[in-house]
């Protein structure tokens, strides 16, 4: 088996790459540990990328060398040794699967365990009879869930994308970014880095140099994407950084809703995740981007867990375009994440709906930036922070209006809920306005789960944990309702699970 792996791998690596001394590591599908220009070349080569892409990566790498790790966030962690990480890991048996049948059954099992069916026939079979409600929403309305196309990314490699043919019929491109580089290089070249440039910030620079895979979406003019798109990221290999890159383009008058889900196994060492997501919405287009992040948060003492340092930015490039971020952040030891919208187009709209839960020793510093450049642009921010255990939960948000952004409007609401008395919640709003016509509103509240509420729920039969989960789900309801129906019930459960052990 190992021999076959070796042969397969040798085939995928061009002979001249041997001079970089990778021989000893060939048997595993890792790049050698550490980071240098050769590693960048190795990754690019492994993916069979065109020269311009390699040059782009190298440019990013060189810029990154001169950049500094940001320190302004309210998070603390030991210094990361970037030379002590692997920058590329691929599941051995499947360097380049052609179809579902070639995928290691163990991988399929892993996803099945996570509740993510990858085989289209399974997805179809798993669906309820036509018209039969799948679950109740919180008000008792019956919900009939639709279908979801999934792109699954395992460590550094995209494993499979489902429902491709059906999407293609509508003209929607949904594939891994590696595949997009092969099949649609002109689109990637046009848009990659146009929202988050290579030298944007430390982690974005690192990502630009070594990103391994991620999802690519293009929706042509006037097309409403016929189903939910979703990517599941799974970080599996040890000591491996995961650097995905996602690029979504909604052309004029189109609409797409996309959801990413993330998980990682329990590990004693911390793992680094530094993703970049770029969204581009042209005139009258709308992108809804949802995240349900459940990376391993570390143990109760703060050992292990994922460092989630992510740059997500959307560009409302055209008039009346709309970008909406919804995030449910329950995992990671440290979260450093500010999904932002550049409101360039006239009358464009940006939204940010966030649920950030921290428990144990987790540290969350998250929020958004709404940058108003266009006339009559508007934005709305609803942030729900829940802190339990000995965690720290900070909302950090910037709303700014450029001189030309006349009549820009923003409404911000930040609510924090504390569970127990050893956690902390902080709200750090920054507001800048260069036009007197801008209207910015900010509201903030902090509350606790009361003993009365707990007793009331328990007297009705709920356990302590069920009571906390229910009360918290109520607290975050406004945001939860922004998620695609298909993911609501699952997310409610996840919220309960992530708060286990927070009381008593």
């Amino acid at each position, binding site marked *: 088996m190992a021999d076959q792996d070796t042969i397969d791998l040798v085939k995928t690596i061009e002979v001249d790459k041997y001079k970089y001394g990778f021989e000893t590591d060939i048997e595993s599908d890792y790049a050698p540990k550490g980071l240098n220009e050769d590693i960048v070349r190795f990754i690019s080569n492994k993916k069979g990328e065109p020269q311009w892409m390699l040059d782009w990566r190298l440019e990013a790498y060189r810029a990154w060398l001169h950049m500094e790790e940001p320190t302004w966030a309210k998070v603390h962690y030991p210094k990361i040794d970037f030379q002590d990480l692997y920058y590329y890991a691929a599941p051995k048996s499947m360097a380049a699967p052609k179809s579902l049948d070639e995928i290691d059954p163990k991988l399929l099992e892993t996803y099945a365990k996570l509740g993510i069916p990858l085989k289209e026939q399974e997805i179809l079979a798993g669906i309820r009879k036509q018209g039969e409600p799948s679950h109740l929403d919180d008000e008792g309305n019956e919900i009939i869930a639709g279908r979801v196309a999934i792109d699954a990314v395992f460590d550094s490699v995209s494993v499979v994308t489902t429902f491709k043919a059906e999407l293609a019929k509508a003209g929607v491109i949904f594939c891994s970014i590696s595949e997009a580089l092969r099949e649609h290089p002109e689109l990637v070249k046009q848009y990659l880095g146009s929202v988050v440039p290579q030298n944007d910030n430390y982690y974005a620079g690192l990502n630009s140099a070594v990103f391994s895979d991620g999802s690519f979406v293009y929706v042509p003019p006037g097309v409403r994407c016929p189903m939910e798109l979703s990517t599941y990221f799974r970080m599996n290999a040890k000591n491996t950084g995961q650097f995905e890159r996602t690029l979504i383009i909604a052309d004029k008058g189109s609409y797409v809703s996309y959801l990413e889900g993330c998980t990682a196994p329990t590990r004693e060492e911390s793992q680094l995740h530094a993703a970049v997501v770029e969204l581009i919405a042209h005139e009258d287009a709308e992108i809804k981007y949802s995240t349900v992040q459940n990376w391993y948060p570390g143990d109760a003492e703060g050992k292990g867990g994922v460092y989630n340092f992510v740059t997500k930015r959307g560009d409302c490039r055209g008039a009346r375009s709309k970008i909406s971020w919804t995030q449910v952040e329950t995992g990671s030891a440290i979260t450093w994440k500010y999904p932002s919208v550049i409101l360039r187009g006239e009358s464009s709209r940006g939204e940010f709906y966030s649920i950030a839960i921290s428990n144990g020793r987790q540290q969350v510093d998250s929020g958004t930036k709404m940058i108003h450049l266009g006339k009559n642009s508007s934005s709305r921010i609803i942030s729900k922070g829940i802190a339990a255990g000995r965690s720290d939960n900070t909302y950090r948000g910037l709303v700014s209006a450029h001189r030309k952004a006349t009549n820009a409007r923003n409404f911000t609401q930040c609510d924090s809920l504390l569970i127990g008395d050893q956690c902390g919640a902080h709200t750090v709003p920054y507001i800048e306005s260069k036009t007197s016509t801008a209207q910015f509103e900010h509201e903030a509240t902090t509350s606790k789960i009361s003993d009365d509420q707990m*007793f009331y729920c328990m*007297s009705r039969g709920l356990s302590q944990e*069920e009571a906390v989960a229910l009360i918290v789900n*109520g607290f975050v309801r406004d945001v939860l309702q922004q998620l695609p129906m298909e993911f609501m019930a699952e997310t409610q459960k996840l919220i309960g699970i992530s708060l286990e052990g927070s009381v008593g």
Partner: protein
Amino acid sequence: MLTINNLHVKLEDEPREILKGLSLSVKAGEVHAIMGPNGSGKSTLSYVLSGRDGYEVTEGSVAFKGEDLLAMDANTRAAKGVFLAFQYPIEIPGVATMQFLKVALNAQRKARGEKELSIPDFMRFVKERAAKLNISQEMLKRPVNVGFSGGEKKRAEILQMAVLEPSLCVLDETDSGLDIDALKVVADGVNALRSPDRAMIVITHYQRLLDYIVPDFVHVLSAGKIVKSGGKELAHELEANGYAEFVEKV
């Protein structure tokens, strides 16, 4: 069904004793009314029975269907059939009443090793019970007790009781805040739940409620003890004479 024997209760963080040797025995099928002056310990009794934190039992015992009730958590008691209709129902923002009922019923069924109700069955069941209490679909979608009027809150408590079908119902001043029509609706709802295998303890200040929910026994609770027990006519006496007779005794 319920045997309270010489119950002494104090607050956990205060030395003051609130219940001072209370004894009461309730059999299946019976309805007991408890009346008594403000501050005599009626709500405290209901909380101790339903398992609220913050109280310390210093003496005495409570047996429920032959088991030690005081040793159980509040949720275990609920699953075993204890229900308290609160004097002041609690708000849970963002949690629709329908959702709350579903979570509560399923939690209890799970604890008893029963299967969850299917969604259509659950919906039918709740809608039918709600209609009897004049509770609209609209109200079921609203968050638990949030923005409910005083009377709506009390009706919602009885709906919860009707859905959870407990075997021991403790109603703490369910009549307060109800207008006359609502009182009839609620009393009808409660009466519909009377059955040979269900017992009720009805705490009230007013004879009026007992005209609709006719009790088998009436007890006077004063200064932490039951000082007099009788039939339904005792309520009429109290209505006429007040509690002066009992309060002086203390």
